[in-house]
């Protein structure tokens, strides 16, 4: 799976007269560059708004996943299209699907501890694999073993990750606003600024 892209054209009937007037004055390429800039802004605002909500597990540390998606979103244009391209995780979230271990890996490590959130298991040194149960109830976890403290006979372990064969991620339609809502917001921005842009040329 690769990156996710939004592609829109000003050729449709929905573009308002002020925008069509702007396009007639500055040409298709530049008009689509303006549309791309407006769309990029709207997509980034949406991601930045989502970044304001705490992570689902309520861990105190934040990875700012959504803010980083905003930072990685970029735009370009042709004579006939405005194109906004988002980083790969947007596609994964939007469409959902089965996530399997990468090449050479047998399991996915899901963080269940605040100290593991936003981190990969292989970045930890000395995690201990602990298996329990049998058959379909069999489970495996990665445990960080702390040092034995005063008065303790044995070191205490803390579960950092659970290991799973795969994860089925639900599609999240709220990853992005709808195409029509995005285009409408971008048109509104362009329409409100069309006269000022023409004055500035």
């Amino acid at each position: 799976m690769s990156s996710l892209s939004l592609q829109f054209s000003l050729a449709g009937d929905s573009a308002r007269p002020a925008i069509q007037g702007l396009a007639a004055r500055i040409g298709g390429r530049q008009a689509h560059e303006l549309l791309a800039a407006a769309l990029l802004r709207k997509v980034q605002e949406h991601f930045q708004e989502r970044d304001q909500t705490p992570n689902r597990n309520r861990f105190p540390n934040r990875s700012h996943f959504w803010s980083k998606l905003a930072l990685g979103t970029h735009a370009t244009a042709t004579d006939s299209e405005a194109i906004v391209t988002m980083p790969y995780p947007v596609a994964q979230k939007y469409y959902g699907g089965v996530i399997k271990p990468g090449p050479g890996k047998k399991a996915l490590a899901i963080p269940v501890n605040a100290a593991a959130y936003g981190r990969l298991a292989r970045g930890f040194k000395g995690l201990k694999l602990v298996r329990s149960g049998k058959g379909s109830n069999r489970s495996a976890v990665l445990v960080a073993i702390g040092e034995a403290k005063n008065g303790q006979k044995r070191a205490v372990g803390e579960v950092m990750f659970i290991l799973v064969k795969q994860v089925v991620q639900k599609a999240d339609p709220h990853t992005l606003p709808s195409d029509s809502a995005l285009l409408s917001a971008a048109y509104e921005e362009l329409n409100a600024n069309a006269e000022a842009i023409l004055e500035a040329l």
Partner: protein
Amino acid sequence: MQLLSSPQPFADAVAWAKGRTLLPTSLNTTGLEKLSADIREVAVFSAEVTHAEILQLIYDRTAKMVAGVSPGPGQYTSPASLVADLRELLDQIGYQAAEGKEGTIQDLRSWKRAELIADVQLRMAAGYGQYQRWVDPTSMLLYPAAEFTRLEWRRVPRGTVMIKGLEHVDNPRYWHDRWIEAGGQVYAGGRLLALMTDPVWAAVSRFGVPYGPPDFNSGWGRKPVSRVQATAWGLIAKGSKVADEQQQNARPAEAPSLANTVKAAVGQFAPEILAALLKHLGRAWQVDAAGNLAHVA
């Protein structure tokens, strides 16, 4: 909406990440800050990191990370994978933090330091890519200005200190003060606004460049302001010509590189900084007759 089968990398961000040269250095953060922004912008370095292998890993993974594409299942390079790769490499090469510095920000293996490296690399490279869009002449027709504001929440923001686990506000106007010190204007309602090409963006940055985060771990950044809003706020005069606005302090469009940007006068460096820099840049860099640091290869 379309899922692209062929990757569409963030070209400007990748160009920034790839246009740099490794700069192993024994300088600490304070020493590195004495280097001109031109040098820091085009070098891959980290305070007191002398292993080229470590810098090479940061260089390679940063370019992949900011591309934003996944070559295949489980192969996406995220900040977390850069950190994991770095910590694995440190184990392989037997890295040891300086005595007494274990677990601190000066220990490369510490989560805090490794995550800071990944964070700064991502934000600088992607920030450069965003900046290219912001100062694009056509884009500035629609968004000629920006507001300097908080984009990300922080548990302990600058101007706040934690005393016995409780938040104590020391200076709630920290960023306002820093903005004013950098030459920025404050508009009605205390809003910090400037044209996209205003020199205040580089001046307010600890890194001396007009893109990326303004400081380590900062959640502040630019929020574009439309032409109509910028006119209403008084940033631009009604009927002003965009050509005049865009001329102000515009930077070259191409990604910076060591070969074409190192023209800094030697006089700006302290002797020990210059010696360290020349040592690590190698024989291809010398001080020429005019007293400039020049590429002679």
